[in-house]
Each structure stands twice: as structure tokens, then as C-alpha cells.
């Protein structure tokens, strides 16, 4: 809002040059504002804060406060039914650290995470490379590879739980055809991890391929022309030009899948009909372990301790990721990707 003051008398405008005394006013005094103008000024000043407040209020309620409060719960006896008990210091943490299943859950989470991120990024890269050509029916192909994304993790797990059946599963039947013995997907630790990682990969590979494809399309085409002149084959161009050019996006995809992957819950929970991660917790992940402590054993205190430990784990791995990516990304000259669409695996975004 600009206000137009009435023109001031000429005498007022000349600046005083006398050494003593404050300089005379060079501007006329503001006329008194009317009530309406005052309202308009407050409107300008306060509106922005008003507009962003819903987010901050809600985040305080369901983000920051619960996180801090989790710490508070984790140093108390706290039962699901009875509520808060006495202060126990770090006992909950100690009992978690002494629990064999906690370390198992940590191992399983990392194992499933590795199995579901490395192949996924490699396949997504290759797929994006295939899509980054003069295809007929481009939009159709892009939509087709995104189909798994609309199937909810719960449904995905039920379908794959059937495919990976120990006795009658389609996968074992196919293995039988080529003369491989049936695999005990719901018994063997590594096999169960492979099955769960397959579900994650099935749902997310196409999605990530589209993100990588978008970055690939920003690679200057003359780079390919010069590579072509230098005699590089298609594959060689992809490995030596495309992949280095989109490195920041690759790192970005890895980081987002880290945050999602460390919290994996739905798939291990529904992989069998008991839902605790196997008879000896072969595929129990950290979030599933947290749920078992809190809602099966009804001990919210130890569950809160696990939540805090998981938070620390995510922060540590995110920092490691960031340091690594800055090391690796320092050499490349591409624009870093700003963001991606919110991806969560079973969590609220």
C-alpha cells in the first residue's frame, strides 16, 4: 500500500545544514490513518503468518510434540492399558538392547533395505534409459510402468504372499519346472527378505524410473552427439554420459528410499497370517518390533525407546547419505533436483 501524503510546504523540504541540532525532517509527517487504512496495514502484516499457521499448528500437534513426548514416555513404565507408571530412567533402553529380537530386527531391516534399494535403482535406471528414446506411444508406456504404484502395500503383500507360498506358490512351481527345489519363503531368513524386497521393488521401480527419466531428459543432447562422433556405443553413452549427468537425482532417489525403507512395516506385517515376522522373527523389522512391544506386549515404554532409536538411526543414515552424496556429487555439474513427490511406505507423508 502506498500512501500519498499531501504536498508539503516548500520551506520544510530544505535540509538544514547547521552543524548543531538534529537535521530537520525531510519528509512531511504522516497524516493520521483512517480506521480502514489501519485495517489494511494489519492485513498486509498478519496475513502471511495466518496463511502458514495451519501447517505449523498441526506440525506442533502431530510432529514435534509427539516426538519429544516419545522421549518422555521412553523413560517411564508405561503400559498400553494402565497408562503412565513410575520413572525408570534408561531401563527401557537397556531392556531393548538386551533383547535378541531387537538386534534381529535391526539386521532384518538393513538386509531388506539393501535388497530392495540397490536392484531397484539399477533396474529403474535401465528402464528410464529405455524410456528416454523416441518411443511410439510414450505416454502409454509411462503410464503402464506406473500401474503397481496404485496397488496398496497391503494388497501387494497379500498377492505376493500367495505367489511366494511355500507349498503351492507360483514361484516355487516355476522353480520346479527348471529343476530347482522348492524354497521355504516363509521359513528361511534370507528367502523371506528376498520375497519382501521383491514386493517393495515391484511397487516402486516404475515410479523411480519416471523420476530418473525426467532428469535424463534434461541432459543436453549435444553431449550424445559428440559421444557418437567419438564412436561410443549406445550402452557406452548411457554408462559414460547419462548416468554421470543425472547422479544427483540418483542420490536423491536413494535418500528418499532410505527414509521409507527403514520404516518398512506393512509388508512384513502381512507376509504371513500371524503378523509378527515369522516363528523366530526371521523377517521382523524395527517398526514391526515396535508394534509388537507396544500393542502385543502392551509395553509403550519400551516401544517408545525403540521409536527414538529408529529416529536416531534415520538421522545418522541421512547424514551419512548427505556427506557421501556431497563427496560424490562434487564432480558433477548438473542441477540438483529440488524434490520429488512425497513418497512414504506405510507412513503418513
Amino acid at each position, binding site marked *: 500500500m502506498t500512501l500519498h501524503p499531501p504536498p508539503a510546504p516548500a520551506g520544510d523540504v530544505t535540509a538544514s545544514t547547521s552543524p548543531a541540532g538534529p537535521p530537520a525532517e525531510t519528509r512531511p509527517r504522516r497524516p493520521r490513518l483512517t480506521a480502514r487504512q489501519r485495517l489494511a496495514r494489519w492485513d498486509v502484516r498478519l496475513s502471511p503468518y495466518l496463511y502458514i499457521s495451519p501447517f505449523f499448528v498441526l506440525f506442533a500437534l502431530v510432529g514435534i510434540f509427539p516426538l519429544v*513426548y516419545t522421549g518422555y514416555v521412553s523413560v517411564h513404565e508405561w503400559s498400553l492399558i494402565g497408562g503412565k507408571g513410575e520413572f525408570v530412567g534408561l531401563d527401557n533402553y537397556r531392556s531393548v538392547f538386551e533383547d535378541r529380537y531387537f538386534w534381529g530386527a535391526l539386521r532384518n531391516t538393513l538386509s531388506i533395505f539393501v535388497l530392495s534399494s540397490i536392484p531397484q535403482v539399477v533396474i529403474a535406471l535401465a528402464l528410464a534409459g529405455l524410456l528416454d528414446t523416441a*518411443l511410439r506411444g510414450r505416454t502409454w508406456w509411462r503410464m503402464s510402468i*506406473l500401474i503397481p504404484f496404485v496397488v496398496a502395500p497391503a494388497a501387494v503383500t497379500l498377492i505376493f504372499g500367495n505367489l511366494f507360498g511355500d507349498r503351492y506358490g507360483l514361484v516355487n512351481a516355476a522353480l520346479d519346472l527348471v529343476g530347482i527345489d522348492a524354497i521355504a519363503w516363509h521359513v528361511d531368513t534370507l528367502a523371506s527378505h528376498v520375497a519382501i524386497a521383491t514386493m517393495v521393488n515391484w511397487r516402486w521401480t516404475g515410479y523411480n524410473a*519416471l523420476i530418473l527419466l525426467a532428469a535424463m531428459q534434461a541432459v543436453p*543432447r549435444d553431449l550424445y552427439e559428440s559421444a557418437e562422433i567419438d564412436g561410443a556405443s549406445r550402452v557406452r553413452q548411457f554408462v559414460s554420459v547419462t548416468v554421470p549427468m543425472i547422479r544427483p537425482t540418483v542420490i536423491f532417489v536413494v535418500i528418499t528410499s532410505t527414509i521409507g525403507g527403514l520404516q518398512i512395516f506393512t509388508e512384513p506385517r502381512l507376509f504371513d497370517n500371524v503378523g509378527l515376522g515369522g516363528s523366530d522373527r526371521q523377517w521382523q523389522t524395527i517398526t514391526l518390533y515396535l508394534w509388537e512391544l507396544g500393542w502385543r506386549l502392551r509395553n509403550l515404554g519400551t516401544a517408545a525407546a525403540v521409536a527414538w532409536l529408529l529416529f536416531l538411526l534415520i538421522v545418522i543414515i*541421512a547424514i551419512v547419505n548427505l556427506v557421501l552424496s556431497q563427496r560424490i556429487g562434487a564432480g558433477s555439474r548438473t542441477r540438483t*533436483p529440488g*524434490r520429488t513427490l512425497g513418497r512414504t511406505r506405510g507412513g503418513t507423508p
Partner: protein
Amino acid sequence: MNRRPGFVVYGLLTAFVIGSVGPLYWSLIIGSHTKSVVNERVPPLLPGGHFFANAGRVFETVDFWKALGNSLLVSTVCATSVVFFCTLAGYAFAKLRFRGRNWLMVFVVATMAVPTQLGVIPLFIQMAELGWTGHVWAVMVPTLVTAFGVFFMRQYLVDAIPDELIEAARVDGCSMIRTFWNVAVPAARPAAAILWLFTFMTVWTDFFWPMIALPATNPTVQIALQQLQSGYYVDYSLVLAAAVLSTIPLLVLFVLTGRQLVAGIMQGAVKG
């Protein structure tokens, strides 16, 4: 890109698409036969005629209508609320000048890395104290406005609205909120559609929080699926028929809006 793809490229892509659709097709096969098929050595290759019978059993076994209604309600309310509040906040961050703007935006971005579900225990305690556990309201609250949404709208609106347009509206005497309504909202429409879609899908497919917040008698679709599967004996023709049923609404949405989804994912990656 002027590289003509050859037979190999199409072949590989076709293989990938078959792999993408295969499991869904499989669930349709199993879900449309009687349960005796599950134990046969050679599985059928075509859907059978029992799908509606199996679907009927799904509705008898759990309250699937209620589950569908709940999911639809929660997803619609969350998506609409996210679009409204995130457009408002995104507009403020993109176009209005106020003290602390940059720091607050950094804070919003930082919160994207904090998974909400880590606070699931206090959230549960809070909901219990408010007497909301068991009510779908408890499922909605954490997703009424999201950090990602604010960020997404800000990125979009920075370029989408010329400053002159806002100034013109202000000079013409629009109040702040009226400027938002007449200038920002029309400009934000394409991004708002994408944000609405993604939020709807995310909430529809969510499992962890609804499972904790809702009792067995008041499920969302995903929780109903879990209930069907949790017996001693898993009847796969029943369970996979339900998996198909639970996916149909999103598939319909996908058929109608697949283009926007693809565009949204690809925009999200490059516009920095």
C-alpha cells in the same frame, strides 16, 4: 531425442510391463476361482466365473461397505484439506514478504525428513485421551496439511504467478485474502490437481496408523484386508478377491488421471 528405438527396446519394455501387470492379473485369476484351484499343480491361465461369488463372501466376512466408505471419506477429506491449506501456505512462502520467511521455509523442508509415524505412541495416547480412538477422525488428523504439500505448492507458485498480477489486484483494492482467491487459486489449479491425487492415494493406501487408531469394527479398506487374512487358514480366493476389490477405486482413478500422475512425478523431480 531422435534415437529410434529398435526391437530390443520394445521387447524389454514389454517384458517389464508384463511383470508390472502380472501379479494383479494373478490375483484376479485366484480371486475368480474356487479355493480348490489354489492347490492344483498347473494353475489356470484365465479368470474363472466365481469372482462375484467370492466378492459376495468378502462382504459377508467383514464389513467391506463400511471399510470402503471410511477409506473414501478419509482420503477425500485429507486430500481436500491438504490442497486448501498447502496452497494457502505455499502462496505465502512463494509470493508474500514477511519476516522470517526463509527460516520458516527451511524448517518446513526439514520436517519432511521426520517420519510422522515415529510419534505414533504419543499420538495414540493423545487420541485415547481425547476419546477419538476408534473414530475415523483420528486417522485424518495427522494428514490434514503436509510439509511436502506446502513445499510442492511453493515451488509451483513461484513461477506460476507474475508479481505484477498480485500488485495489480492490490492496487485495485483487493484485500490479501481476496487477492489469494482471485489470483493465486486459479493459477494453482494444475498443481492442486496433482497434489490432490497424490494425497488421496497416499491416504488410501496407508496401513500403519489406521491399524493402530481404529478398532476391528470400524476399519478402512486396508485394515479389512488384514482382517480377512489373519485367520488360522488363509482362503486365498477370498483374500485375493478382496485385494482386487480394494484396488478397483484407485485403478479407476488411475485410468482417468494417469497422465497427470506421470506429469506430476516427472515435474516433481526436475523443477528445482
